């Protein structure tokens, strides 16, 4: 018996990433996979969508039509995510969070079109988590001085007793990992469930898997998108703290006064 016996009964179960072609660069073999192709399709769709949206807003009317109404509602919703969590300071993050939301949403629901969702590839979600990590740390250093950061890192204990420091650092490092793994595992589990339904029950899978698609692709995908954006915004907001202005601005003001 071969070790491949596990999937012996179903040859058509396949949710893995496949390489399409490879090329050599600096002695390393680099594969272009199905994830890249699906990402490209999602990105092109988004670009077309953004172009149409830009044209609609460029010729915006006093009394909005249907498309303009829908787009305005969408933009208001996306701005609301940052404004609810960060208030006035969130203005600079509206663009990033908006694009992030639309990108992850389109990636997640691309399973409806028969694509393999790009977010079911850890190579796609880990960079998103790392961008969040960089944003958190950069804004922490932008809005807080070093003493405040040190005090925050030793937080349950007084700042001259940094026993809690390594634990706080570990919990900071765990943020991008848990963020990216959450999105990845959710979308992957949906993908595996759908593949199992189509692979094992292929004879009777007519029509009714659409209900499963609504749950696994639309509902789960939308919830995870919202969670990712919401957590990103919350982490950045808590890293900034109560400071209204950046450290540099405050220092300049002190010099002037």
């Amino acid at each position, binding site marked *: 018996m071969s070790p491949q016996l596990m999937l012996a009964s179903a040859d058509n179960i396949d949710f893995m990433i496949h390489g399409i072609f490879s090329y050599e660069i600096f002695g390393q073999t680099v594969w272009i996979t199905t994830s890249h192709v699906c990402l490209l399709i999602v990105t092109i769709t988004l670009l077309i969508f953004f172009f149409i949206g830009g044209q609609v807003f460029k010729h915006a009317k006093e009394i909005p039509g249907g498309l303009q109404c829908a787009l305005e509602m969408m933009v208001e919703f996306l701005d609301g995510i940052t404004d609810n969590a960060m208030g006035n300071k969130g203005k600079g993050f509206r663009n990033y969070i908006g694009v992030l939301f639309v990108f992850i949403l389109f990636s997640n629901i691309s399973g409806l079109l028969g694509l393999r969702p790009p977010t079911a590839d850890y190579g796609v979600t880990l960079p998103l988590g790392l961008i969040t990590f960089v944003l958190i740390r950069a804004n922490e250093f932008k809005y807080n001085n070093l003493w405040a950061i040190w005090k925050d890192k030793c937080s349950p204990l007084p700042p001259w007793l940094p026993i809690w420091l390594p634990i706080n650092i570990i919990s900071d490092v765990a943020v991008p990992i*848990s963020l990216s793994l959450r999105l990845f*595992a959710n979308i992957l589990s949906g993908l595996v469930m759908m593949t199992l339904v189509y692979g094992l029950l292929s004879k009777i899978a007519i029509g009714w898997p659409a209900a499963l698609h609504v749950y696994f692709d639309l509902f789960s995908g939308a919830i995870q998108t919202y969670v990712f954006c919401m*957590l990103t915004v919350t982490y950045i907001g808590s890293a900034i703290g109560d400071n209204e202005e950046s450290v540099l601005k405050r220092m300049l003001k002190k010099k002037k006064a």
Partner: protein
Amino acid sequence: MEFNDNFILGCSAIGAGLAVIAGIGPGVGQGIAAGYGASAVGRNPGAQGKIMSTMLLGQAVAETTGLYGLLVAMLLLFVKPLLMK
């Protein structure tokens, strides 16, 4: 002592099954969250939208541990890290 591939694969399958037991915790947690959400809507039906979104957010975060278990199971079954190549 040397183990053959089938033995390791069988143990991996058992391990995957044990890893998915992690799904119990999030199930209980999400149920509790949904129950409190329902009672909150009963007390204040006007705030249904906000309660709903808060509940879903908390449930999605609580789901993470279960998904880690699922991830371990998937790694054991499909990547087969214990199998020597």
